[in-house]
């Protein structure tokens, strides 16, 4: 059966919104506690204590903060029970801010589609990059984008 071009166009139009839903890049970052106090670039990371890759990303984020002190890192915890997060954080020398969002309201606003999810926000409050998951072999790429952001922000 030959497909009507109108039908094809209509189905494409219907599918388009679902594609654009996945990307937050280019959109202003929703309000996160702690974000409004900073004027520089921010890395927002959504994590939970039960998520393996999130746990793996913590030492890296600590090291990132040490290497780039001018980068603000906000780790949004999505554990339903805050005690689980605090148990995970206990004894770890965390160098960045932790925000608790047990109801997932922030995650909903950021359209988090996997754990962990991270967002790089520039000084204008616009999300310039979004990553889902944490892969150790992609660390050089993550650091390159942070560095690029910091260099662009420099006066």
């Amino acid at each position, binding site marked *: 059966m030959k497909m009507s071009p109108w039908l094809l166009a209509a189905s494409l139009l219907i599918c388009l919104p679902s594609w654009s839903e996945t990307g937050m890049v280019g959109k202003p970052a929703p309000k996160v506690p702690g974000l409004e106090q900073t004027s520089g670039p921010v890395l927002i990371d959504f994590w*939970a204590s039960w998520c393996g890759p999130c746990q793996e990303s913590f030492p890296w984020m600590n090291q990132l903060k040490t290497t780039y002190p001018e980068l603000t890192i906000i780790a949004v915890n999505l554990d339903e029970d805050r005690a*689980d997060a605090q148990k995970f954080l206990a004894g770890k020398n965390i160098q960045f801010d932790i925000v608790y969002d047990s109801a997932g309201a922030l995650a909903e606003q950021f359209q*988090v589609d996997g754990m962990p999810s991270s967002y790089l926000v520039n000084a204008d409050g616009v999300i310039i990059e979004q990553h889902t998951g944490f892969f150790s072999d992609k660390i050089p790429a993550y650091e390159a984008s942070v560095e690029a952001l910091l260099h662009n922000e420099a006066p």
Partner: protein
Amino acid sequence: MAQRFCVCVALLLVLPTLGGCSSLGVKPWQKGILAKDSMALEHARLQSAFDAHIYNARESSTGGSDLEGGGCGCN
């Protein structure tokens, strides 16, 4: 012509429902309980792989758990 129009309208009405269930279900951050060890379908992966290996080695000659016979229904 009218029939074709009806088919097109019907298809247009059905198409939006294709993605209808994509927004339902568990959100990524709500999978904490599912991630617990006790929620795993098999508690010892190595043991399960070993059992499967023995089972396949023993049963492969008769077609294992699948129906791999010649179609005569005699085995």
